[in-house]
């Protein structure tokens, strides 16, 4: 029943040095990342950081210019086996505007060997999505639910969603994420969903992958992230001081005070320092800023995958 990532199991998605260039510029460069099996992972990053490019390559919708990617040990390919194992929901949530929901379910049933019609119908019925109207007449939230229901009914092993909630209003967003969480519950489905806002997806995710400047800055479970980062508040000092004794992810200084977001602080702290729990969003924002500054701060990219077993 436990969906926790175990250190000894192979990752669901593994990219090594993955890169993609468009013309002369890189859409994604030197991306190495592991997405644990059975987890709901958030792929975070500012706009243009390569989230879409990464997802497209994982789904086999785009070919890599450099490096490699494996999904459940398989390289993306135009084979029925690979296509059946991976679900991909593009950002614009493509649907045939003139076809109704029932017709979409029918086409899904006919184009997939594995197909869970009951689950899709049940969820859409519960949400009161009309089955007999062209999808063009449905609301944005309903269309998103239809697109998700199709991707889930395919019963993939890995489900990739590109900014699924960015265009939805708060209610539709909550309903969409609820459908997603319900689909993942107890099935072992691996989910990787991108978002430029952690706040949007924080509740449903138990793992975070942060892309910034087209590189992976962070890859860890949310629990591990929160437990191994602390905020330190203390007197302003020179760069010597305690900043050396642990990795400082972000430092902000006022005239008299320093506020440090640090990684794994040891117990040896001067009495003049106060220690606070770090908020997940603050941690993510700090690493995102680090990517933008070109990694000027001491702490390098962080991968905590191997610690997830302990964190549970």
């Amino acid at each position, binding site marked *: 029943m436990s969906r926790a990532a175990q250190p000894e199991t192979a990752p669901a998605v593994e990219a090594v040095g993955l890169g993609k260039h468009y013309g002369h510029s890189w859409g994604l460069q030197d991306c190495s990342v592991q997405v644990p099996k059975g987890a709901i992972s958030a792929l975070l990053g500012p706009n243009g950081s390569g989230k879409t490019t990464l997802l*497209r390559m994982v*789904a086999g919708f785009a*070919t890599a210019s450099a490096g490699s990617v494996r999904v459940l040990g398989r390289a993306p390919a135009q084979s029925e086996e690979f296509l059946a194992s991976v*679900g*991909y929901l593009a950002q614009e949530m*493509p649907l*045939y505007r003139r076809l109704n929901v029932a017709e979409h379910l029918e086409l899904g049933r006919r184009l997939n*060997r*594995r197909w869970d019609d009951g689950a899709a119908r049940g969820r859409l019925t519960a949400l009161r999505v009309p089955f007999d109207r062209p999808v063009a007449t449905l609301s944005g939230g309903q269309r998103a639910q239809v697109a998700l229901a199709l991707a889930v009914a*395919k019963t993939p092993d890995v489900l990739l969603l590109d900014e699924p909630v960015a265009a939805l209003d708060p209610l539709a967003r909550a309903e969409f994420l609820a459908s997603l969480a319900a689909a993942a519950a107890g099935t072992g489905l691996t989910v990787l969903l991108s978002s430029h806002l952690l706040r949007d997806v924080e509740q449903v995710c138990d793992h975070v992958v942060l892309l910034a400047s087209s590189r992976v800055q962070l890859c860890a479970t949310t629990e591990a992230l929160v437990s191994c980062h602390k905020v330190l508040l203390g007197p302003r000092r020179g760069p010597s001081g305690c900043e050396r004794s642990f990795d400082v992810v972000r430092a902000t200084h006022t005239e008299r005070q320093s506020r440090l977001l640090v990684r794994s602080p040891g117990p040896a702290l001067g009495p003049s320092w106060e220690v606070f729990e770090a908020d997940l969003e603050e941690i993510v924002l700090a690493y995102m800023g680090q990517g933008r500054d070109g990694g000027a701060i001491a702490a390098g990219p962080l991968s905590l995958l191997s610690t997830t077993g302990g964190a549970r």
Partner: protein
Amino acid sequence: MNYLTWRLHRNQVVFAAAALVALAALLLVTGTRMAHDYSAALSTCAATRSCGDLSDELFQGDGLVLDFVTAVSIGGPLLLGIFWGAPLIAKEIDEGTHRLVWAQSITRRRWMAAKVGWVLAAAVAWGASMTALVTWWHSPENALYGRLGSGHFDIQGVVPIAYGLFAVALGIVIGTWTGRVMAAAAGVLGGFAAVRALVLLYVRPHYLAPLTARLSLGRAALPGNPWVLSKTLVNAAGHPETVTSTFGYVPAVCHSAVFKGPSALSSCLQAQGYRWLVSYQPASRFWEFQAIEGAIFVILAAALVLLALWRIERADA
């Protein structure tokens, strides 16, 4: 895939079928009357031995119908290319729905095979029905004018089917490359017209080596309505005369005949050994020409389809 293909394109099929039914009604009504008129005229002229002039008399009032049927027959493949070929892939890419289908457990090759296979089959069915009707409808005209000339050759036999396949394939491949329905439709319009014109003007005359004949300068014509490619004036030695000025080539003995009128001039030249050298394709080569031209367009269509498939299998989406 068959379900999805039918569901997406059934409106186009219904519309094309309705157009075919309307055309069939028009052709059956006018064709039956024309065939009747023709056989009646044949028995009349046989009695008076004036059958040579039939072509000047028959079907004078049918110019509008003839032009219309010719236009529809020539334009039909173009319409297939614009309304069936161009949107087939381009509309999916334009509206992003290819990302929905490609996310299902169906390979792009199978997706293309189903879509392209069905549209080509429909194009063959439509073209075959149309050309069968027109070939029957046109038989009196064929008897009068032959069927190798342009405007006759192009609307009957098997070539209209091949044109349709080519136009549809052209729409598919441009749509695949541009992902825009309008661009693909414009490409079909320009590309199809250009290729057809090039083949008609520069390729078709050379399918088989043309025959030549020397004809006297009177009103003599080749029997059996052949396709005349060129007609040159040659002198007694067999050298072609280039007409540079009115008198340039006329030998001195015939100078006075110039002023007596064209028929006097031609009988003078005839007496001096001048002849028409005619280069032509005999009407009996109709089916050979149909086969060659049909094959050309089918091969072009196949190449375009393979190109589109190659592109789809490699495209980033």
